[in-house]
């Protein structure tokens, strides 16, 4: 069973349906027990970093994620759901993240923001997530990103104005800056790669 963490963040319906293409049971919930039982927990996120963190805390998501991490149970952060896994962000003001991944999130240096649309990925060697879809386009919509490779992780990058992390795979943590649930057939394959690894 896959749980999508519901903490009031944007369009969860698409995420649910997209994961249902790969898994028999996908629920959208912030129920602690269900989130802990799930084979994989998806952490979505849109909007501003600080607002997302506030909503996550209000919905009890911080404790849920900490409990899964304590048991090394898989999590998958998407977009701002990836960003909040890092230590901090400099979006508008400095904000503290969950600190599960080393590094910080800052504004992309590019003349036109948000970075909006379909881009390709420089897939790192050994990536399981991108198996079969390393040459494909994925859908991005963001103005901030983590830029430094995470030590010990499989760091795949994208370039828009500068290089930044498009996806990180380390131990039981997977995170993508793009939206696999909005990335058509390529995204569906990537999701099925993750679900298959659980």
């Amino acid at each position, binding site marked *: 069973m896959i749980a999508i963490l519901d903490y009031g963040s944007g369009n969860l319906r698409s995420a649910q*349906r997209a994961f249902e293409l790969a898994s028999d049971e996908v629920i959208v919930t912030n129920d602690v027990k269900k989130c802990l039982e799930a084979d994989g927990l998806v952490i979505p996120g849109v909007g501003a970093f600080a607002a997302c963190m506030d909503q996550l805390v209000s919905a009890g998501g911080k404790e849920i994620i900490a409990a899964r991490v304590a048991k090394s149970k898989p999590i998958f952060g998407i977009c701002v759901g990836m960003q909040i896994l890092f230590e901090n962000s400099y979006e508008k003001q400095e904000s503290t993240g969950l600190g599960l991944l080393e590094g910080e999130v800052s504004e992309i240096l590019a003349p036109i923001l948000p970075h909006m*649309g379909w881009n390709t990925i420089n897939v790192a060697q050994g990536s399981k997530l991108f198996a079969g879809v390393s040459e494909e386009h994925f859908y991005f919509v963001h103005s901030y990103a983590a830029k430094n490779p995470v030590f010990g992780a499989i760091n795949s990058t994208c370039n828009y104005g500068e290089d930044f992390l498009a996806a990180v795979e380390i131990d039981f943590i997977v995170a993508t800056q793009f939206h696999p*649930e909005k990335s058509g057939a390529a995204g569906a394959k990537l999701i099925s790669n993750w679900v298959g690894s659980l």
Partner: protein
Amino acid sequence: MTLAKRVIPCLDVAGGRVVKGVNFKDLVDAGDPVELAKKYGLEGADELTFLDISASIEERATTLEIVRRTAEQVFIPLTVGGGIRSAENVNELLRAGADKISINTAAIARPDLINEISDRFGNQVLVLSVDARRADTKSGFEVTTHGGRQSSGLDTLAWIEEGIRRGAGEILLNSMDADGTKSGFDIEMLKAVREISSVPVIASGGAGKISDFALAIEAGADAVLAASVFHFGNFTIKDVKKDLEKCGFSIRA
């Protein structure tokens, strides 16, 4: 690694159906929005846009249901515009499965709406749709309302700058002079808007030939949007993308 130029079909919806006509007149039923959305998705649409042209509240209620059904079956970004008056309207649409929403007249009537939506959901959800035409204003382009029939008194470039400052994450630039003419996008206006816009710009209005799209991209558009040329089957999204690629632009195959 280059960000692909986007090709976006726009579907006018009312009462749960796709309608098509010329300048909102002589509307004919053109089918189920979800089926058309799926078809466009398979043809390579990079995003979809629904424009709700419902005349009544009853008809409008069906739009949420269309958004729901589409988001369940089509896994590319979906923008919904038409009739959005509040941040709560936006919340409903996002919860139903929209990824972005577009506002037009309501933002002109009450510019704070831009801030309210952007502050709550982030600027990436907010497309500011601008119906512009040539006129005797500072930049030579003015903003219109009521489908181009009335002047809003706003200068196009000044309004776009204000919209971005208030939190618009993307500009949908509709040329009311070119709309329906099939004589190509308004290249001069696109260039003027590209110069002052720090957010992506979508060109709309005037597409008639396949080669029109590359000209809009060359003028600085990040994406191109069209309705009738796709609905009436003049050519497909794939045809447009092939031509863009031939002209040296990066596309998603």
